């Protein structure tokens, strides 16, 4: 395998930049954002150079590696800090640094009034570094560092305005939910080490066929748990909506385009395990299926534009996860959808940010309306993203989502049918709620209560949105052209290893998809045509109520984990004081009591002392008496 000394700089540059910004303090206020953006751009440049270099090599030589140092080495447990850049990681590197850079640029303007802008950029750079480490690590343990690193960055960014208690709580919630996922990753690594004696991707892949399916299933399920945490999949999805507390660029970068897709990366990266663990794979499908519907349903009921988009993200990642569960070919489509989603969702989030920017940080769509004419560029780009996500050809989403639906049907049997219907249903609901968002925001009457008219955002914000829009138009076409991405990824995921029979001809699937999408749009248009949109309707169906409450996920968490947990803590506190500490105190008080009881023997009367002596002597004599009897 080729080595390259450049990889480390991909991570080191943003990491150092972040450290400098944090350590320099106020002194860096004036130039911090510029440096951060330059660093991000440099990382993109490096990534791009590597990509070009990679393309120029033959398929099997494309991966490059760099060993930095021995990280942990104890007995047979050896983990090097080494980086691996292969066809899969380069996709992510480009996405992360590319979208990242755009969002840096966007943020310069978006955050210009914030006193802590420097800190924001430090966090962003930290995120970039951690995310790159996540995708570049050559072993699960290295990945783990990046995995938690992005979690930390996400925590910091969600809680960027942590003086608001709700935001701080949201940050904490995200971290804790992620930690639950991390347990899965930890356990997966442990099982892997116990099974293979190694935790590097290459090492495990090499021996994977010797492992029993139980072990592989265990690893797979644990990895899935990890993915659920990070990618906000059922049942660990509840944090994502709250995570919208972070500044909008963060939502775009972390909670839409990159970090939340790490679960998809993880499963794709672990394809060699999942391919051998059908039960785990089935679970992946189930989780993906549930989440895509779950997210979509929630999306229909949200009035907060960011939360609606977040629900959408959840749903879209559900698609990707579902795709990864579909076997070798699915990985490629998952990655493709991941990339296209990265573009259009980032662009829509930034668009939403732009709207908020113009609307004095108002997020409630019911207070929007008719913004399109005040913010035409934003409306345009948002619209492009909209078309992409609902899968209208030739926009990016069409290519990727269509493939997933198609592959889902091709999974065969009842499974295929169920998955296919689920994905179709998802597509319909997606069309519905996205149309709803667009209508509520850009069309209809103006429902904001103040006189100031919304204004279009500055160029520094619009340019990144524009660039992303281009991506959302073109990326699907480019990536699927000649099955380019599929072939590109072939050495990593073997997408062409097996081939399913086609359940339906592709064109039929496409038509079905387009039909349901159209139905979705029509329902939305008919429902949100009226003027009575300023207030959310009160008497709504049970389903809507449920959707508004995130399908009771928070309530479930509270009643199943939080409340019992709190009760448990209270009880343990009591037990500790009453029982454990109580025992210790009891020993003390028993001694004291015994002491004072025995003390009363010493009553001051010499006669009773003499009696005590007689009794003592009597006891001794009695002992002899017994012994000699």
């Amino acid at each position, binding site marked *: 395998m080729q080595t390259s000394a450049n990889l480390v700089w991909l991570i080191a540059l943003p990491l150092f930049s972040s450290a400098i910004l944090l350590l320099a303090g106020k002194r860096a206020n004036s130039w911090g954002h510029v440096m951060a953006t330059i660093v991000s751009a440099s990382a993109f440049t490096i990534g791009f150079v590597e990509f070009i270099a990679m393309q120029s090599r033959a398929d099997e030589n494309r991966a490059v590696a760099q060993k930095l140092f021995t990280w942990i080495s104890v007995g047979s447990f050896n983990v090097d800090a080494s980086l691996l850049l292969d066809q899969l990681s380069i996709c992510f590197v480009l996405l992360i640094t590319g979208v990242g850079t755009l969002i840096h640029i966007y943020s310069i303007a978006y955050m210009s009034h914030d006193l802590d802008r420097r800190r924001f950029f430090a966090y962003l750079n930290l995120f970039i570094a951690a995310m790159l480490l996540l995708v570049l690590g050559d072993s699960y343990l290295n990945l783990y560092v990046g995995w938690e690193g992005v979690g930390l960055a996400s925590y910091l960014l969600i809680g960027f305005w942590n003086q608001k208690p709700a935001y701080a709580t949201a940050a904490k919630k995200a971290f804790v939910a992620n930690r639950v996922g991390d347990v899965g990753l930890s356990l997966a690594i442990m099982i892997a080490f116990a099974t293979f004696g190694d935790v590097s991707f290459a090492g495990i892949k090499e021996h994977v066929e010797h492992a029993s399916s139980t072990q592989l299933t265990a690893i797979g399920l644990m990895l899935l748990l990890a993915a659920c945490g990070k990618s906000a999949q059922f049942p660990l999805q509840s944090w994502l909506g709250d995570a919208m507390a972070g500044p909008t660029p963060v939502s775009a970068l972390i909670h839409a385009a990159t970090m939340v897709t790490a679960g998809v990366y993880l499963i794709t990266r672990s394809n060699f395990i999942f391919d051998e663990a059908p039960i785990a794979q089935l679970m992946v499908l189930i989780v993906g299926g549930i989440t895509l519907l779950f997210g979509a349903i929630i999306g229909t009921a949200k009035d907060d534009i960011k939360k609606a988009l977040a629900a959408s993200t959840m749903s879209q990642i559900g698609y990707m996860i579902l795709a990864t569960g579909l076997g070798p070919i699915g990985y490629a489509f998952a990655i493709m959808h991941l990339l296209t989603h990265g573009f259009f969702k980032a662009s829509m989030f930034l668009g939403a940010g732009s709207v908020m920017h113009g609307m004095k940080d108002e997020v409630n769509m019911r207070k929007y309306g008719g913004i399109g004419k005040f913010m035409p560029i934003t409306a345009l780009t948002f619209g492009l993203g909209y078309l992409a996500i609902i899968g209208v050809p030739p926009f990016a989403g069409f290519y990727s989502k269509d493939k997933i639906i198609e592959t889902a049907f091709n999974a065969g049997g009842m499974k295929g049918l169920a998955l296919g219907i689920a994905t179709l249903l998802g597509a319909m609901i997606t069309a519905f709620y996205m149309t709803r968002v667009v209508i509520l925001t850009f069309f209809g009457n103006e429902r904001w209560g103040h006189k100031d008219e919304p204004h279009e955002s500055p160029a520094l914000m619009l340019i990144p949105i524009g660039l992303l829009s281009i991506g959302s138009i073109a990326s699907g076409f480019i990536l699927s052209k000649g099955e380019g991405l599929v072939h590109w990824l072939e050495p990593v995921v073997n997408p062409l290893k097996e081939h399913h029979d086609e359940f339906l001809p592709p064109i039929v699937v496409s038509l079905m998809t387009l039909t349901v999408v159209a139905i979705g749009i029509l329902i939305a248009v008919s429902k949100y045509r009226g003027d009575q949109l300023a207030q959310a309707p009160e008497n709504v169906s049970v389903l809507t109520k449920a959707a508004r409450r995130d399908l009771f996920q928070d309530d479930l968490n509270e009643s199943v984990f939080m409340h019992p947990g709190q009760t448990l803590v209270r009880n343990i506190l009591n037990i500790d004081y009453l029982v454990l500490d109580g025992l210790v105190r009891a020993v003390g008080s028993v001694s004291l009591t015994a002491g004072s009881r025995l003390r009363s023997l*010493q009553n001051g*009367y*010499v*006669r009773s002392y*003499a009696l005590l002596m007689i009794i003592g002597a009597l006891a001794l004599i009695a002992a002899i008496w017994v012994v000699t009897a």
Partner: protein
Amino acid sequence: MAIANYLYLSAILFTIGAVGVVIRRNAIVVFMCIELMLNAANLAFVTFARINGNLQGQVVAFFTMVVAACEVVVGLAIIVTIYRSRRSISVDDASLLKR
């Protein structure tokens, strides 16, 4: 008659002396009971001397008498002192030191 009878007598007198110390309150009587115990021991010594056929037991008994005499002097001096301070020779009254 068995010589052991003297031993029984000795044991009984010793016990009477020992219990007398416990149930009498007059310090002097208490002290006399102790003397009784010493006498009981002496009787045992004399008896054992006879059994063993040597005079060591009698020697001890002799010493005991001397020692007892000294003890009596000291003891009575203490009792008198107490009496002079407290106007009482009840051992129960001397019970301030306790617990």
